[in-house]
């Protein structure tokens, strides 16, 4: 494990703000059906989050810096949701309504889990 208690916590904050916040950008403001105009933006949020890389890839890249939080249930849940989102990508990009609806839920789930992780980390002090 590289890093220190402080840097692990920073990495979690980074994850919550860089990935969590942006993944949920469109999703948390849409209910039910995804309006066609918003679909490309939703796809961008999940598959090209913030700097062109998919959120799942960002998560994987940040994982070594998370220290023990890489195994935290919230992190695992977020990763799980992103993996499911990855499997949906072809259908979502084809603008299949069911896939887009599912993507909406997954994006909200990811944001929610990463925020919860950030709060938990703040509460606990070091791991």
């Amino acid at each position, binding site marked *: 494990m590289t890093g220190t208690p402080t840097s692990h916590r920073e990495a979690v904050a980074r994850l919550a703000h860089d990935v969590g916040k942006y993944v949920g950008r469109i999703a948390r403001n849409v209910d039910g059906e995804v309006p066609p105009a918003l679909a490309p933006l939703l796809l961008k949020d999940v598959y090209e989050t913030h700097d062109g890389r998919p959120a799942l890839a960002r998560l994987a890249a940040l994982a070594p810096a998370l220290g023990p939080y890489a195994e935290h249930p919230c992190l695992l849940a977020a990763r799980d949701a992103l993996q499911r989102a990855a499997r949906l990508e072809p259908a979502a990009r084809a603008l299949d309504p069911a896939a887009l609806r599912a993507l909406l839920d997954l994006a909200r789930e990811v944001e929610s889990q990463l925020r919860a992780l950030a709060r938990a980390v703040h*509460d606990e002090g*070091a791991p």
Partner: protein
Amino acid sequence: MSPTRTESPREAWARAEALWRERDVRAYAAWRAVDPASPEGREAERRLDAADAIYRSVIARLRAGEPDASAPLAALPGALALAPIDPRLYLPLARALRDHQPSDPVRAARYYLRFLASGPDEDEARAAVREVRALPLDTSPETAASVAATVRAFDATERRDTAREATARAAGPTVTALPAPALLASGVAVGLALAALGGLLVARRPRGTSLERASDEAPELHPAITYLVGGLRHELLKHRIGAASDALAALVRGRATAPQRAFLEGRLFGGEPLLAAWEGHLRAFERALGPRVDLRRRDRAFREAARAIAEIARLEPLLARDPSAAIPRLAQAHARLRAFDDRLAALAARLVRTRVDEALVREVVDAVQSEYSASLVALDELRIDVTEPDLEVEVFRVDLVLILKNLVRNAILAVGREPAPRRLAIGVSVDLEATGEELVRIHVRDSSPETLTADAIRERRADRGLGLVSAALARYDGALSVEPAGDGYAKAVTLRFFRALERPDAPHAAEAT
């Protein structure tokens, strides 16, 4: 020592743990060799790093010198229970014990022996042998015997090597590989050293107390406690108990779907039995914290949590047979465990924060002034200015105290080398940055004109403790600077940390469920 190609991480880990249980010197390498990408490897790494921090801190504290020289060693059992020690630390530890615990040469000797059994570099081995044979070991005949055997074996190897070298030189310019010291094969020495290691546990056995009390009384346990509490909370309380919350709430309302029910049962009753998992955590606490805590009898929070766990385990058959009877009891036990989790969270949050106040600074100054060299220095002025209320930084108390003691000791000894007036002032200031963050600065001012630069501090070896200060600061996103100071002081050594703030407010209203 690397795993065979067909060995899985789990097998490698099992083997590594077995070596450690036997206190085999190869344990550390085996732990490091477990594939770090696997969960077992990550666990090994976590524990090695946590223990490493403690071992290094023990060495640093021994070298820094404290009035009660056995105090740093109290942290050793905790570290020994977490993970094996890096063999590279054996020699520094042995030397630190030899130099700063002259009343207990046997302990030092044991570490010299472990060092020699770990396949050390030739020159260091030679130095170690020279040093250990000079120790007075009449109080422990077995250790004396081990040392004697080791020394004999080493001398024999040396003679053989010297003879070989002479032959080789006569024969021509070829490189002769020198055989590894014969000590590795010296089962007697290792065996005795291993048995002796068991005796390194603190002789005094105080009555165990609650976790919270132990953490109040023994700040050196904080890193280990933080690690253990984190593990308990993540693995048991969050992943199993906490994860079942929503499903349980639905069950209580009578609205649980079949998948929710299955999920709840899976979390609570599936996999490793709850009681066994709980017991595992409890034993980890006991191994690491030793007789200082008694979580089974003297810690009410843990006792109640244990009862709640047992209750949940008991309810499994009833939940199937008579849900309406089982569910309220399940909900109650669950609520008690959530409360226990909150309490642990509060404890952990306290541990990695330190209140920076006058009491802290006085404790540091008193400790340093009672050390021999510092006590010889007559200060003409000692000012302590710490007035900001509720000031906390995110640093383990043991580490902050270690850093401050080093700075204060250096200042006192520096002014001690100068003529009067000898002045020392310690103050704290908090400044608001343009970013809205707050910087906490702890200044140690002294009247010694001796030059000291931040670079010199960073590059210095651990001899005067300042090299370790740099390492500790890097761990905490802290910084150190040296500036000239006015007002009758020559310089100010300033520690800088960001102020620790409370977490963001209550969950957002639109938070997804």
